């Protein structure tokens, strides 16, 4: 580790020394950023070139400018078309950011419920052997199902509105959280438990002071998996009555042949997923600073 630190220190140090050292002593972050920027620029340029040269029908692949325009239109009030003075706001009666927010809201509710329930269930299954053994096959069964396979049943039970979608997200999200919690609980080294028991801890105190914090890194990575899974699920679930919703908007725009808006939605969906995961990763780093540093 100290070697890595030393390398980072020399690499990110100010550029000094002879002309040969100049390219080398670029800060690592900057160099990596430059690589990403050039790949991205090349990609955009190809996209622009292909569409500007009319190699592809814009109905199938519109150019970057059209996509950007669709994105701007979906977030503002604008005339229906050049000749009309009728003003519409956003797309499908909502601004794009409202669609995004609606999807995020479903995720927030569904995943929050999944975290509360999934962690609790994971603790019970991890600490009580018999209970865990009895329930594990059912948990595995549920986890193996593609969530869209049972959305029909949920619609019959809870209607076509938000309730069935939130149930779907809950059912999709809690099994990975429960599995991660169980793995975390079972992976705790016995001597850690022994250490706190010898200090006089009761069963409950062992849970609070050792089992729970030991499991936290696993739980956080379980939540990250669950959120990623929930995100793909919500976008697909919004195919049915999904307005407002970013997945619903992408689908409806597609049926109306508004390809630029579809692509704008796809980009927003992807970026939102990455932002969400990065936020959780950061949260994890703040909540469990010891992760990966401490030995058994």
């Amino acid at each position, binding site marked *: 580790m100290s070697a890595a630190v030393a390398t980072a220190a020399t690499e990110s140090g100010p550029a000094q020394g002879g002309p040969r050292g100049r390219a080398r002593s670029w800060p690592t972050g900057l160099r990596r950023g430059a690589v990403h920027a050039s790949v991205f620029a090349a990609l955009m340029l190809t996209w622009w070139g292909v569409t500007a040269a009319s190699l592809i029908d814009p109905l199938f692949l519109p150019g970057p400018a059209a996509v950007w325009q669709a994105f701007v239109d979906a977030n503002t009030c604008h005339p229906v078309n050049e000749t009309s003075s009728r003003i519409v706001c956003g797309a499908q009666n909502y601004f794009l950011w409202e669609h995004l927010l609606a999807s995020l809201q479903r995720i927030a509710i569904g995943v929050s419920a999944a975290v509360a329930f999934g962690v609790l269930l994971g603790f019970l299954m991890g600490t009580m052997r018999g209970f865990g053994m009895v329930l594990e096959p059912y948990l595995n069964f549920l986890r193996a199902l593609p969530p869209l396979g049972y959305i029909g049943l949920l619609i019959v039970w809870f209607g076509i509105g938000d309730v069935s979608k939130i149930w779907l997200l809950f059912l999709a999200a809690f099994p990975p959280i429960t599995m991660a919690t169980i793995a975390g609980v079972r992976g705790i080294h*016995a*001597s*850690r438990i022994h250490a*706190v*028991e*010898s*200090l006089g801890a009761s069963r409950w105190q062992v849970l609070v002071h050792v089992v729970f914090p030991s499991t936290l890194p696993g739980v956080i990575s379980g939540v990250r998996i669950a959120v990623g899974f929930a995100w793909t699920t919500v976008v697909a679930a919004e195919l049915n009555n999904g307005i407002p919703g970013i997945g619903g908007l992408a689908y409806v725009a597609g049926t109306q042949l508004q390809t630029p808006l579809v692509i704008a939605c796809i980009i927003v969906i992807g970026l939102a997923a990455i932002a969400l995961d990065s936020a959780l990763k950061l949260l994890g780093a703040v909540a469990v600073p*010891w992760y990966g540093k*401490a030995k058994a």
Partner: protein
Amino acid sequence: MTLASPRIVRTARAIARPAERNAMTFVDSPPAATADTPPITLAGVTKDFVTDSGDTVHAVAQVDLAIEPGEFVCIVGPSGCGKSTLMDMVAGFLPPTGGTVSVGERVVTAPGQDRGVVFQQPNLFPWMSVRHNVELGPRLRGVRARERRELAERFLTLVGLEQFMERRPYELSGGMQQRCQIARVLANDPEVILMDEPFGALDALTRERLQLELLEIWRQKRKTVIFITHSVDEAIFLGTRVLVMSARPGRVILDQPVHLAGPEAGSELRSLPEFVALRDKVSAAIYAAQNVHGATPVDH
């Protein structure tokens, strides 16, 4: 200053501040039992394991042992002879297959605050600072924040970690982590301290320094200590009594009192003829035990 429990008041008084500590070290009084240290009794203790493949491993066979209050008992023996198993039964981590372990009048059935355990690995909790690790035992008993902070500061000073109290354990070296673990056990004021090869993973210099520190602490506190080691040298240097266990199934084949430890003797003790004679005697017992059972040689 008000302290929560009478036990803690005693601890607080027993632990001298660093300035007074040196003075105490040179007061030559033999180890005497304190009133709150009960004897430990093992009666016909046996432990068999059933392995995953269905075989039975006889780890410990018929151990009868009486450990008096204030003794520093070192247990040596070839590796795999059942030393850790024996200690785990005293700690309450493992139930014996036969026989009983008692501390005072109570039969041991579970781990407890009365038996502090120092493991070979530091076993500190990385989500707590060094100080919070040491405070944990008192905290579990509901000692108030200010008092347990004082306790932690006192014991961390005792083991020389006062500069590192707010660090996380993984920011300390192995030897410092082991010191912290010892402070955590001492701050919890156990009646008996069980140590399973606590210095086994340390380099020779750190090990020797910690041996001296441990002796000094033991002289101040007069706690009963059971100390497992595979080093004959360490056992004779530290112990008032050395037990040699045979190869598996482990039983006590030599029970050797040691009356060398004088407070004035530092590491020079090792070159005294009495020390060398005892070391030869104990080593011979271990080798004899191995040859009888054809077990693996003792590791040094």
